[in-house]
Structures are given as structure tokens and as C-alpha cells.
């Protein structure tokens, strides 16, 4: 095994490191992934953000303010719910749902936005920008901006604006300006390009709230830290419920923030099996027909970090496809790329069809309408759980609710609204 000066593996498929939780190094590397690949105009801003976050991280006042917001505004802790009928149906592992869909605004995205808006305020920033795909992150950003009285511009692909109308309306109600990104295929990656262009043009007053564990360092580590409250709660809640740690964790992966939030706390509990479920779209064998960057892509550099990307042989980024706008991104957080190569986390995929089936199953069996994103995680649970023993404690992150998806689900199922 090759270790660099920070004790991180520098070779893919290296043998087991002592800890999976020490990354990133000070240049933002998780193994060979991550880093800071941005234009010079943004480098000083990113270094300033890094310093501000390092200071905030160790400030009890910052932690106190965030914790207070989580309790009284967000509604944390979210329940760890024993999905009894799902368990009976699948006849295997004992299935728990981490109910992050019950958060204020309906997904895990708010966990990160609360942390970053407090940081933006500490830094004296007076204008907020963000990118969004399905609109869950955009709504969460618009929400915290309303709560703290800051103007907010959300970039969203023109295609996504069309397929996620309810969230666009919510953002507007909350006072955000939704600007369509019209370049490329006009989806999430193009929205991120536009947000970066905005940031380069507004360097003094603007704070960019990235919604996932990707982007230039410190974003991947910072967003992970803000989402890690999910895993911390699961650890305590499972100890209370079962007197021991879970055996299996499952979460869906787009950029990978809900998954890092659940996984990070447990990475060094090596007996726990961890699965990330990518969006298989029409199938991994369909060219440009999926959004599984780790199962169907290769390493590259985009949006400030090195990670697995959907791309052609010439290094041009592909758009990918998923039924879920929230998973429809050609990259993935660099820490996932590292966890993939070291083998600590197993990355699998679920197709559009499998996710739709799981969506309906969850709705009918548990009375919970999941978002299409965690429906991918559930689709894999329906395959995995029957193979596991009845005393295997499985936790799936139910990271968003499906209200936003009912229109597209109706269309896919050919149902009248």
C-alpha cells in the first residue's frame, strides 16, 4: 500500500487503511480524489471559506446555534422507524427507516443549508446563490434565506424547471429568484456551471451554498460534516431501540450527501456492511442512459474536484439520465470515489423501473410516499433484505418525501391525477 504524508492511500484498490474517517488532507484530497480545481478568481474565496469553516467548526457558539435550529426549526432528531410491514413483506433483515423526509422542507437538504447559512452570516456575506436539480436543495436554500432575510438566487436547469414545477413555485413563494440555466442539456450540472459563473462575477458579497458533498475543498468535507448528524442520531437511536449497532446501511447516491451523512459515523465500524445505490436509469448497459458515475463512469475533474464522472473517451462530460432529477448528475462526491476504490462501501445501482416499483411498495405497505431518490435505495433493499438473516439490523436513509414526484410518477405509471 502506498501512503502519502497524511496517511491516506494514494493508490486505488489499496489494502485497508487504519481509519476511513481521517480525510480529507489539507489540500482536500480523499486518496487521489477531491482537491481544488477552480479558476484563480475563486481560489482566494475558497481559501477564505476554508479558514472560516475551520474556525466555526471549533466554536461552541456556532454548534449551539445550529443545534438550536435543528431542534426548534428543522424538527430533529428525525425518527428511526421500524418498518414492520416492509420487514414482513421481504422476509429477511429487520428494516429501519431513518425518517429524514420528516425534516422541515421535506428532505435531508436542510441539514446542510442551516449549517452553511450560519457560516455565510459569520463571514458577513449578504447574498446567497445555489444550484438545484430536483429543487429540494433549492427549496431548502430559499427557506433558510427567508428565515435569515438574505436575498437568494437559485440556478436550475430549464429542463428541470419544467419537470419540477411545484418546487419552483415553492422557491418563488419563499422569495428566491429562480434563474434558468439554458446551456448544455439544461439540468443540474449546467445549473452548477451557472452558479460558478455567478460566483466569479460577484466575489465580494456572495456565498455559494453547494447542495452536495462535491465541489472544491472544503465543500465535500463541510457538507458531509453538516449531514453527519444523520448517522450520529442513528447510532444513538439504534442503541436505544436494539441495544447494539446496525449491521447494514443503505442510501441512494446522486452527489451523495444523504449517503455520506448516514455512512460517515460508521465507516470505522468495519463489521457494518454499507451500500450506496446509484441511479441505473434505463440500465447500465444503455449508453448515456443512466447516472451511475461510479458503476459506469471513470475518474476525471469537474466542478472543482477529481471524482468519478460520466464522460466520453475525449473527456467531454455526458448528461446521464435518471427518472429522479435529484440523482441526475454526472459526478459524485470525491469521498465516495475514495470509499469505492478502497472497497469500504459497495456501490450498486437501481433502474428507473425498480425505483418506481419500490416507490409504490413503500406507499402501500408503510403509508409513506418516498421521494424517487430514496426509492432507489429501497429498490436495492428489496433485493438485499431477503438474503439477510432476521436479526440483521438494516437502516435505510429515507432522505426525502415524494410529494414533489407525484406528477412525474403519475405520468410514468400512466395514471390520471
Amino acid at each position, binding site marked *: 500500500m502506498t501512503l502519502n504524508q497524511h496517511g491516506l492511500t494514494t493508490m486505488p484498490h489499496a489494502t485497508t487503511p487504519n481509519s476511513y474517517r481521517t480525510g480529507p488532507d489539507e489540500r482536500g484530497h480523499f486518496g487521489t480524489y477531491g482537491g481544488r480545481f477552480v*479558476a484563480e478568481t475563486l481560489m482566494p474565496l475558497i481559501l477564505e471559506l476554508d479558514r472560516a469553516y475551520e474556525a466555526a467548526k471549533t466554536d461552541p457558539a456556532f454548534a449551539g446555534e445550529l443545534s438550536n435550529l435543528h431542534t426548534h426549526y428543522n424538527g430533529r432528531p428525525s425518527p428511526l422507524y421500524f418498518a414492520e410491514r416492509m420487514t414482513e413483506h421481504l422476509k429477511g433483515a429487520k428494516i429501519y427507516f431513518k425518517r429524514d423526509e420528516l425534516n422541515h422542507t421535506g428532505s435531508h437538504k436542510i441539514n446542510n443549508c442551516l449549517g452553511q447559512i450560519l457560516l455565510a452570516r459569520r463571514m458577513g456575506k449578504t447574498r446567497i446563490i445555489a444550484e438545484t436539480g430536483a429543487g429540494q436543495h433549492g427549496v431548502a436554500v430559499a427557506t433558510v434565506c427567508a428565515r435569515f432575510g438574505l436575498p437568494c438566487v437559485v440556478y436550475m436547469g430549464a429542463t428541470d424547471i419544467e419537470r419540477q414545477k411545484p418546487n419552483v413555485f415553492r422557491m418563488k413563494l419563499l422569495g428566491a429568484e429562480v434563474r434558468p440555466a439554458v446551456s448544455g442539456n439544461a439540468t443540474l450540472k449546467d445549473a452548477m456551471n451557472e452558479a460558478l459563473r455567478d460566483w466569479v462575477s460577484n466575489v465580494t458579497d456572495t456565498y455559494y451554498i453547494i447542495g452536495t458533498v462535491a465541489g472544491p475543498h472544503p465543500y465535500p468535507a463541510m457538507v458531509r460534516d453538516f449531514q453527519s448528524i444523520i448517522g450520529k442520531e442513528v447510532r444513538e437511536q439504534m442503541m436505544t431501540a436494539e441495544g447494539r449497532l446496525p449491521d447494514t446501511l443503505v442510501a441512494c447516491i446522486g452527489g451523495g450527501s444523504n449517503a455520506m451523512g448516514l455512512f460517515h459515523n460508521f465507516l470505522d465500524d468495519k463489521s457494518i456492511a454499507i451500500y450506496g445505490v446509484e441511479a441505473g436509469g434505463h440500465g447500465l448497459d444503455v449508453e448515456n442512459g443512466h447516472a451511475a458515475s461510479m458503476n459506469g463512469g471513470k475518474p476525471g475533474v469537474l466542478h472543482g474536484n477529481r471524482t468519478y464522472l460520466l464522460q466520453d473517451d475525449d473527456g*467531454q462530460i455526458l448528461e446521464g439520465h435518471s427518472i429522479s432529477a435529484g440523482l441526475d448528475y454526472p459526478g459524485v462526491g470525491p469521498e465516495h470515489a475514495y470509499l469505492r476504490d478502497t472497497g469500504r462501501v459497495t456501490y450498486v445501482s437501481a433502474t428507473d423501473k425498480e425505483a418506481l416499483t419500490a416507490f409504490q411498495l413503500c406507499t402501500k405497505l408503510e403509508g409513506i410516499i418516498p421521494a424517487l431518490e430514496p426509492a432507489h435505495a429501497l429498490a436495492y433493499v428489496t433485493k438485499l433484505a431477503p438474503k439477510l438473516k432476521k436479526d440483521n439490523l438494516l437502516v435505510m436513509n429515507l432522505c426525502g418525501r415524494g410529494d414533489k414526484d407525484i406528477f412525474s410518477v403519475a405520468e410514468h405509471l400512466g395514471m390520471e391525477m
Partner: protein
Amino acid sequence: MTQRTRIEARFADLKAKKRAALITFITAGDPDLATAREILMALPGAGADIIELGMPFSDPMADGPAIQASSLRALRAGHKMAHTLELVRDFRKADTTTPIVLMGYYNPIFVYPAETFVEDAAAAGVDGLIIVDIPPEADDELCLPAIKRGLNFIRLATPTTDDKRLPAVLANSSGFVYYVSITGITGTAAPDVYAVHKQVARIKRQTSLPVAVGFGVKTPEQAKAIAAGADAVVVGSALVSAIADSLGKDQKPSRTTVTSVVKVVQGLSQALTKD
């Protein structure tokens, strides 16, 4: 002492003539390979002192609408990195003195991969590289291998690059320093000439390299004003927009595509050469 590059030779020559360099940007393969080749060949005659050739990328984050569109036109016409190097090789057969700098984003080079890319680029006759999304903190990625192979690595300095950070930006820079005249993307806001001259002077206090100014310079008048306090002026979006405006309804090149770019370059060149 390593051999003088074409970029260094060109700046030395222009310094003797007491004239600022005109650096022109076009995107390789825009609007298609054959037309791009014609434009490229016509640039030196029209007055371009140094040529920046953009490597098309699907996600040009630092570029404004004009250059984004040119990148997409090239990619839709089937442009590959191999074609970019082919253009340079063809150009070198006809012109052995005009420097060519490839400009673009890291990913297409990373997957090439980087070590092979600097080899092939140098062999094709490329003189320097400007890669927008590799900061000096990541010099080991491409900058150092490029220098080792005799290529200049031209770094961008920006209004946000303060005096404390400037030495890091200049450390492995060679050929020239590219000062980004605005905080923004290419071809949008017009630079404030007075502020730009002050910034160029600030950079020149820390380096003996020539300083070129770009991003937002469009007209001969702007070019002339900027050139009064800089060693070179970079114009890109104005050329690329001329290409876009000349295209037919089917987005195919017309009879005026090459000549319209030539006219823009001639106008800029005249502004820089006459007193």
C-alpha cells in the same frame, strides 16, 4: 539555459518595436474543422501576434455565452482533442514563428492523460498552455510536466489575487502572465482601463514576465487603451461572435465566415500598431 520559446521570442521582438502584442482567441473546430483551419491560417496575416486556440469542453465554467456557444458548435461538429493537435501541426507547416497557446479546461487533458498530452502537444508545435481550472496549488498535475517538456505554462492572475497570493501564482508561470481584467466570465463586462493599468503595474513589480490583459476586451478602442499599460491584449469573444454572426440558418459556415474574423483582427491590429 533552456531554449527560448516562440512566445519569449515574439515578446522580445515586439518589445524592440515598442508595441503591445495582439493575442487572438478562437476555439479549435469552430464552426467546423475545415473552417477553423482556414481561420487559423489567416490569423497571422490579419495581425495576430500570438494565437490562443481553445480546446472545446462541454462545461466551460469560466466562459461567457459567446465562447460557450463556440465550444458547443465545435463539439457538435464532432471535434476531438486529436483534431486540435492536428490543427496545430498543420499550422506549423506553414508558420514556424507565430506562437500557439492552447487554452481550456483540465478534464480532457486529464483523461488523455496529462503526461502523454504534453508530449503530443509539444510535438505538434504548441508553445504554451493556459488551463483555467488548475490553480498553482496543483502544479504537479500538469504545470511541472509541461515545463519539463519545454512548454510555457501561462497562469491567470485576477483582481482577487492579492499581493500575498501573487508570488504563488507567479512561481511556475512562464511565457507571460494573463491578467483577467474583470471579476467575471469571458466576453461580458467591460474592464475599467485605469484599474487594469494599476493592476498590471502591481503584477510587474513582482515579475519580469510580460503581462497580457484579457476577458471583456472587444473593440479596437478598448484594445488600444488597455495596450497603453500592458504588454499584450487578448481578444476572444469578439472573434467568436463574428463567427457566430456569419453562420447560415443551418449553423453552417458561410462565405463571409473567414473574412469577418479577419476583419475584426485587422481592426484590432491597426489600433495597436498606429500611433
